[in-house]
C-alpha cells in the first residue's frame, strides 16, 4: 500500500520515525508477496542499519507466516544443513523437533552410519550448559539396553553442538501415530510401553532420568523394535530461558511435580503413562488451549478416563494408565519396572497388580484438587461417598454409582472452565446421587414435577421417564446422609448470589429427601423437610412471579405428598385437607400452565380423593369372616384380622397404595384411644418408621387390625365419604389419565395412576364380586405387569403389584373363590419374598410380607388346612425380626402380637393342641402387656391386651 518513498523524504526524520517509516515500507513490500532483502534496506539507511538488520527478518517471518502457503518457511532451516561436522559427513536430514534437527551422517573414520542430532544453538549458549550437556551425554553413552538407542558421543563444530547416536531405521512413535489410519490397540501400545518402561528402569538403575519421555522419543524400527532416545537431554535444556519453548512443547507429558522442580523415576513413569494414554485414547488426558491452562490442569485437574473416551479399551489397560499418570507420585507405580511388569501381565492376560481407584479414592483425589475452588463441593462429594458406603447396595449398583460419580468427575474436569460450570457439575453430581437413591417418580408420583424440570435445565439426560434405570434401596441412613447434602445446595446457591435455579434444585432435593424419609417410615422427618421446602418454594415464587406456574405446581405436588403422608398415618381429615389444598392450587392455575405434568398431578389428586378414606366405609364390607366379630369390639381379628385382610396401610406402596381401600373398621382394636393424630405422640420416633404401612404413597393406613394407629376411635370417626363425590373424583381422574395416556403412551407415572384408577373402580363396583376377577382389575394388573417388565430394576412397581394381588380380605370371600384367591396371594408372596431378599433394609417391602402371610394363613385356617400353622409361624418369625430390629416401635410389637394371637387361635381350634395354643397366647399377651401398662401408652395396646387376657383365661378354663 505504502509506496516506497524517496530516500530524501526520510532524511528529515529522527531515528525513531525513520525506523518506523522504513519498517512500514518493508512490511508493505512483504505483503505484496515479494521477499525484500533486509540487507538492502540496511544499506540504504546506514543510520539505523543495525536495528533494521535486527528487526526486518522478524517482520519478514511474521508476514510470511500469514501469506505463505509453503509450510517449510515456518519451520525449516531452509537450505542450511551443514555438510560436515567434525568426523561426520551429513547425508540427509531425517527429522526435526523441539530439540533440534537429526541428520543421518557417516562417521568417516569408522565408515559407519550414525544419527547426528544438532542442538539448537541458543540452547547451549554458555559454557556451563555445554559442560552439563557433555556430562549427560557421557552418562547416556554408558547406558546399554536393548531398548535404548546407544549414544556414541558428542561433538562441537561450526558453532554447533551435536550428539551422535546409532542410526535407527524407523520412525518416532509420534509420527507413526499421526500417519496411521487407526489408533493402536491397547495390546500394541502395551508392548511398546512395556519395552520403553524396561529401558527406563535400566536408565534409572544407572542413575539417569530421562525427563522427556514422549512418543517422539520412542522410536520404532523396521523390525518393530522399540528404542528410547534422548536421555537426559531435557534436563540441560530446562534451565535455559530460551528453551522454554522446548519444555512447553512437551508440557503435556510433564509430571505435575516437575512444575515444582521435583523429578524422580516416577516422573518418567508418568510421562510414559501419558504417552500410552494419548496413543490409545487418541487425545491427551488433559486438553487445553494454552499452556497456562494446561499447567493448571496438570497441577489440579483430574485426567480423563480412557474408557470414557472409548469403552472398548480394556479396563486393565485403563487401570495401568490411570495408575501411571496419578498426580501424586506416591500413587503411581513405584518404578518403571513395576509398570513394565503390569503391562506384561496385561499382555499375557493375567490379572494386573494395579488397584483400580475406588469411588472413594477418586472422590478424595478430586476433592484435594478442588479445595480452593469449591470446598463445599468437595465436602459434598465426600458425603456422597459416605452415603455410598452406608447404603447397602449390591456390587453392581455400587459399580454403577461409581461410574456415575466418575462420569461427573470427568465432566467436571472437561468443563472446569469456570466457577459456574464447576458448581453446575456439582449440582449434576448431587442430582445423580439423588436420582440414584430417590429416583424421581418412582414412588411418589408428584415427585416428578419440579425435579424433572430442574434437572432438565441442567442436563437433559435425566428425566422422569428415566426411572427404569434407577435403583431404589433406601435406608434410614441413606435419608440422613442425603439430608446432610442439603446444605451444599444452599451453599452453592449462596456462592452464586442466591442463584434461584440452585435454590429451586435445593427445593427439589428436599422433596426427594422427604420421600425417602417417608419410605423408611420416618414421617416426622419427612414432614419437617417438606415444611422447609414449602417455605423455600414460597420464597422463590415471590421472587420470580414469571415462574409462578412452576412453583404453583411444585407446591401442589408438595401438598399432595403431604396428603399421602397424613394418610399413611391415618390422619384422615388432615390427609383430605392436604389433597384439597393441592386440588385448589392446581385448579387455580392458568390454562397456559396446564402442562402434562400439571394435568398428571391433577389426576393424581383426584384419584387420591376418590379413594375411600373413612373407616365407616368398612361397615359395609360385611362381617369379616366366619367368626365375625362385632364391630369394633370383637376380639382382634385373629383370623382374618381385619388388618391383614385390609390391605391398606400396610400395603400401601408408596403412592400406590391401595389407598383405595377403605381402611377396615376399627374393629380389632376395640376402640382405641384418641384419634390417630393424638396417638402419634406415643409412637417413638421409630413408630413412624412403619414402612410397612404406608409408604408415603397414597396408601392409606391399613385398616387392618394390625395397625394400631390405624383407626380413629369410634367417637372420632370422621364423616363418611360421600359416594357421589368419590365417583366424581374417580371419573375426573379417569378422563384426565386417559387423555394423558394418549398423549404420552409411555409415561410410566401416567400408567401407574391409570392402573390404580382401574383398581379403584374394580373395588368400588359391586361388593359381592371378587374384585380381583373384574375386567377393571385385569386391566390394572396388565398395566402394572407391563411396568414391572419394563423396569425390572425398579422395585416399587413390583411392590405395588404384590399389594394389588393381595388386596382383599380372605374372610369375605365365598368359599368357591378361595382357589383363585390363593393363587393371587401366592404370587404376591413370591414378589414380596424377592423384594425382601433384595432390599432387606427397605422396611416398606419387608413389612408387606407378614400381611400377605397372614391372609394366606387365614384362608387356609378357614379351610382347616394344617398348612396354616406353618404359614402363621413364618409370619411370626418375620414379625419377630421386625420387632427385634425396631424394638422401640410399638407397631412391630403389635403386629407380632396379632400374628401370635392368630396362631394361638388356630392351635386352639385344633384337637389336642391346647397347651401349645396357651403358650402362644401367653407369649402374645406378654408382648403387648408392657405397652398396655404404660401410662399414656399406645391406645391400641389396651384392648388387645384385654382380649388376650380373656383368651388366655378361656384356654385355661378349657378342659
Amino acid at each position, binding site marked *: 500500500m505504502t509506496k516506497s518513498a524517496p530516500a530524501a523524504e526520510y532524511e528529515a526524520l529522527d531515528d525513531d*520515525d525513520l525506523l518506523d517509516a522504513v519498517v*512500514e515500507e518493508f512490511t508493505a513490500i512483504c505483503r505484496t508477496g515479494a521477499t525484500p532483502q533486509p540487507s538492502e534496506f540496511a544499506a540504504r539507511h546506514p543510520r539505523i542499519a543495525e536495528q533494521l538488520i535486527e528487526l526486518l527478518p522478524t517482520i519478514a517471518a511474521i508476514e510470511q*507466516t500469514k501469506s505463505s502457503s*509453503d509450510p517449510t518457511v515456518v519451520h525449516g532451516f531452509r537450505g542450511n544443513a551443514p555438510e560436515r561436522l567434525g568426523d561426520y559427513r551429513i547425508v540427509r536430514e531425517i527429522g526435526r523437533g523441539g530439540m533440534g534437527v537429526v541428520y543421518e551422517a557417516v562417521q568417516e573414520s569408522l565408515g559407519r552410519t550414525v544419527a547426528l542430532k544438532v542442538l539448537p544453538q*541458543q540452547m547451549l549458549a554458555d559454557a556451563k550448559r555445554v559442560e552439563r550437556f557433555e556430562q549427560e551425554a557421557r552418562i547416556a553413552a554408558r547406558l546399554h539396553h536393548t531398548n535404548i538407542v546407544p549414544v556414541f558421543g558428542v561433538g562441537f563444530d561450526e558453532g554447533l553442538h551435536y550428539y551422535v547416536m546409532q542410526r535407527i531405521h524407523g520412525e518416532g512413535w509420534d509420527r507413526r501415530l499421526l500417519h496411521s489410519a487407526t489408533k493402536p490397540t491397547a495390546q500394541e501400545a502395551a508392548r511398546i510401553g512395556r519395552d520403553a518402561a524396561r529401558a527406563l528402569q535400566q536408565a534409572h538403575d544407572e542413575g539417569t532420568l530421562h525427563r522427556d519421555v514422549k512418543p517422539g522419543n520412542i522410536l520404532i524400527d523396521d523390525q518393530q523394535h522399540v528404542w528410547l532416545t534422548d536421555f537426559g537431554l531435557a534436563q540441560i535444556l530446562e534451565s535455559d530461558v530460551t528453551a522454554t519453548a522446548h519444555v512447553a512443547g512437551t508440557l503435556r507429558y510433564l509430571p505435575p511435580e516437575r512444575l515444582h522442580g521435583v523429578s524422580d523415576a516416577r516422573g518418567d513413569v508418568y510421562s510414559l503413562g501419558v504417552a500410552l494414554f494419548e496413543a490409545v485414547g487418541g487425545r491427551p488426558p488433559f486438553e487445553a488451549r494454552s499452556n497456562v491452562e494446561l499447567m493448571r490442569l496438570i497441577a489440579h485437574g483430574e485426567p480423563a478416563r480412557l474408557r470414557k473416551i472409548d469403552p472398548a479399551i480394556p479396563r486393565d489397560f485403563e487401570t495401568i494408565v490411570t495408575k501411571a499418570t496419578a498426580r501424586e507420585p506416591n500413587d503411581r507405580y513405584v518404578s518403571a519396572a513395576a509398570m513394565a511388569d503390569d503391562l506384561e501381565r496385561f499382555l499375557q492376560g493375567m490379572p494386573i497388580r494395579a488397584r483400580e481407584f475406588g469411588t472413594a479414592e477418586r472422590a478424595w483425589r478430586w476433592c484435594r484438587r478442588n479445595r480452593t475452588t469449591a470446598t463445599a463441593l468437595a465436602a459434598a462429594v465426600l458425603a456422597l461417598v459416605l452415603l455410598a458406603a452406608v447404603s447397602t447396595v449390591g456390587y453392581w449398583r455400587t459399580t454403577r454409582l461409581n461410574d456415575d460419580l466418575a462420569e461427573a468427575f470427568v465432566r467436571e474436569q472437561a468443563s472446569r*472452565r*469456570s466457577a459456574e460450570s464447576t458448581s453446575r457439575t456439582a449440582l449434576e453430581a448431587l442430582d445423580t446421587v439423588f436420582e440414584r437413591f430417590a429416583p424421581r417418580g418412582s414412588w411418589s408420583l408428584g415427585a416428578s414435577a419440579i425435579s424433572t424440570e430442574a434437572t432438565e435445565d441442567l442436563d437433559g439426560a435425566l428425566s422422569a421417564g428415566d426411572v427404569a434405570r434407577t435403583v431404589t434401596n433406601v435406608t434410614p441412613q441413606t435419608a440422613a446422609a442425603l439430608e446432610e447434602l442439603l446444605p451444599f445446595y444452599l451453599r452453592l446457591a449462596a456462592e452464586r448470589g442466591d442463584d434461584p435455579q440452585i435454590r429451586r434444585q435445593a427445593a427439589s432435593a428436599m422433596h426427594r429427601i422427604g420421600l425417602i424419609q417417608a419410605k423408611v417410615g420416618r414421617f416426622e422427618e419427612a414432614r419437617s423437610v417438606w415444611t422447609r421446602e414449602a417455605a423455600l418454594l414460597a420464597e422463590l415464587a415471590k421472587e420470580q412471579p414469571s415462574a409462578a406456574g412452576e412453583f404453583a405446581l411444585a407446591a401442589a405436588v408438595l401438598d399432595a405428598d403431604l396428603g399421602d403422608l397424613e394418610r399413611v398415618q391415618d390422619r384422615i381429615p388432615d390427609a383430605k385437607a392436604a389433597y384439597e389444598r393441592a386440588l385448589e392450587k392446581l385448579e387455580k392455575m392458568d390454562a397456559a400452565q396446564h402442562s402434562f405434568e400439571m394435568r398428571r398431578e391433577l389426576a393424581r389428586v383426584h384419584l387420591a380423593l376418590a379413594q375411600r378414606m373413612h373407616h365407616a366405609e368398612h361397615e359395609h364390607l360385611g362381617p369379616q369372616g366366619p367368626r365375625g366379630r362385632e364391630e369394633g369390639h370383637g376380639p382382634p381379628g385373629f383370623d382374618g384380622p381385619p388388618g391383614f385382610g385390609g390391605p391398606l396401610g400396610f400395603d400401601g406402596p408408596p403412592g400406590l397404595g391401595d389407598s383405595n381401600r377403605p381402611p377396615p373398621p376399627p374393629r380389632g382394636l376395640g376402640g382405641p384411644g384418641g384419634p390417630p393424630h393424638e396417638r402419634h405422640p406415643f409412637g417413638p420416633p421409630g413408630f413412624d418408621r412403619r414402612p410397612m404401612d404406608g409408604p408415603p404413597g397414597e396408601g392409606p393406613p391399613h385398616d387392618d387390625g394390625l395397625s394400631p394407629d390405624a383407626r380413629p376411635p369410634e367417637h372420632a370417626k370422621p364423616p363418611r365419604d360421600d359416594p357421589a363425590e368419590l365417583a366424581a373424583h374417580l371419573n375426573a381422574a379417569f378422563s384426565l389419565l386417559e387423555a394423558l395416556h394418549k398423549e404420552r403412551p409411555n409415561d410410566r407415572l401416567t400408567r401407574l395412576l391409570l392402573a390404580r384408577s382401574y383398581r379403584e373402580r374394580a373395588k368400588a363396583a359391586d361388593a359381592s364380586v371378587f374384585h380381583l376377577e373384574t375386567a377393571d382389575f385385569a386391566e390394572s394388573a396388565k398395566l402394572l405387569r407391563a411396568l414391572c417388565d419394563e423396569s425390572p430394576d425398579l422395585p416399587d412397581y413390583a411392590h405395588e403389584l404384590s399389594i394389588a394381588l393381595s388386596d382383599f380380605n380372605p374372610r369375605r370371600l365365598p368359599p368357591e373363590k378361595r382357589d383363585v384367591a390363593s393363587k393371587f396371594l401366592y404370587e404376591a408372596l413370591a414378589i414380596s419374598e424377592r423384594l425382601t431378599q433384595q432390599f432387606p433394609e427397605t422396611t416398606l417391602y419387608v413389612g408387606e410380607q407378614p400381611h400377605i402371610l397372614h391372609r394366606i394363613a387365614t384362608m387356609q385356617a378357614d379351610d382347616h388346612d394344617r398348612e396354616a400353622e406353618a404359614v402363621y409361624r413364618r409370619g411370626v418369625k418375620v414379625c419377630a425380626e421386625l420387632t427385634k430390629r425396631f424394638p422401640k416401635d410399638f407397631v412391630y410389637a403389635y403386629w407380632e402380637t396379632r400374628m401370635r394371637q392368630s396362631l394361638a387361635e388356630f392351635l386352639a381350634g385344633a384337637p389336642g393342641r391346647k397347651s401349645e395354643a396357651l403358650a402362644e397366647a401367653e407369649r402374645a399377651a406378654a408382648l403387648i402387656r408392657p405397652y398396655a401398662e404404660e401410662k399414656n401408652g399406645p391406645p391400641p395396646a389396651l384392648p388387645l391386651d384385654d382380649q388376650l387376657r380373656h383368651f388366655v383365661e378361656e384356654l385355661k378354663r378349657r378342659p
Partner: protein
Amino acid sequence: MTASVPNSGESLEAKDSASAAGADEARLARVLAGDEEAFTAWFAELRPRLVRMVHFRLDPRLRGRIDAEDVLQEVYVDAVRRRDAFAAAQPMTFFVWLRLIVGQTLVDLHRRHLGAQMRDAGRERSLGGGVSAGTSQSLSFHLLGKLSSPSMAAMRAELSASLTQALEEMNETDREILALRHFEELSNKEVAEVLGIERKAASIRYVRALERLKKVLSAVPGFLDSQTLGR
C-alpha cells in the same frame, strides 16, 4: 491529537495520502450528516480490512462455524443503527469506529457460541477493541497457521503452545501492537488511535515489541530463517 506530534511518521502518511485524507474528511462530513450512500460506500471500502480483523480475532474453535461475511453483515446492520453514536464519539476515524463494532460483535458471537468456554474473557483486557479471544492465542495461531500437513500439525501443536506462552509473557500493549500492526494491518496512526496512546509512543513500543518477538521466535526452532543454526 495529530498536532501534538509534529514529527511523527504522519508526514509520510500525510504526503502519501494527502488527497485521500481530504476525501476522508469530506466523506466523514457526509456520513455524519446521515448520508447513507456515503456510509455504505465507505463501509464497502473498509470491508477487506474488517474481514482481516475478523479472521484474526475469531476463536479458532469457531472457524468453519462462523463466516466472516456473516459477522460483517451483523456489523453493518449494527453500525447503521448506531450512526448517532459515531457522531457522538468524534473525533474518531470511521475505520476505528467500525473496528470497535466488529470487536463488540465478536465478543457477542464468542459468548453466544462458546459460552462458558470463553475463559479468556475476563483475563484479557480487550485492548484490541473489546475482542475477547486471547490475542496471544490468535497471534500464535496465525503465526503458525500454515503448518498444515499432518506431521507439521504435530509440530504446530507444540510450537503453538510455546509461542502462545511466550506471547503471554509479553506486555499486553506490546502484544496488541504487534497484532494490530501485522495481523490487522493497521497503520501506526491507527494503532495509536485504537490504543489511545501517542503515535510516537506507539511506534517506539512497536519496535520494542518486535525485538521481544524476535527473541521469542528465535527460541522456536526453525521459525526464523538461519537463526537457529546460525548459518
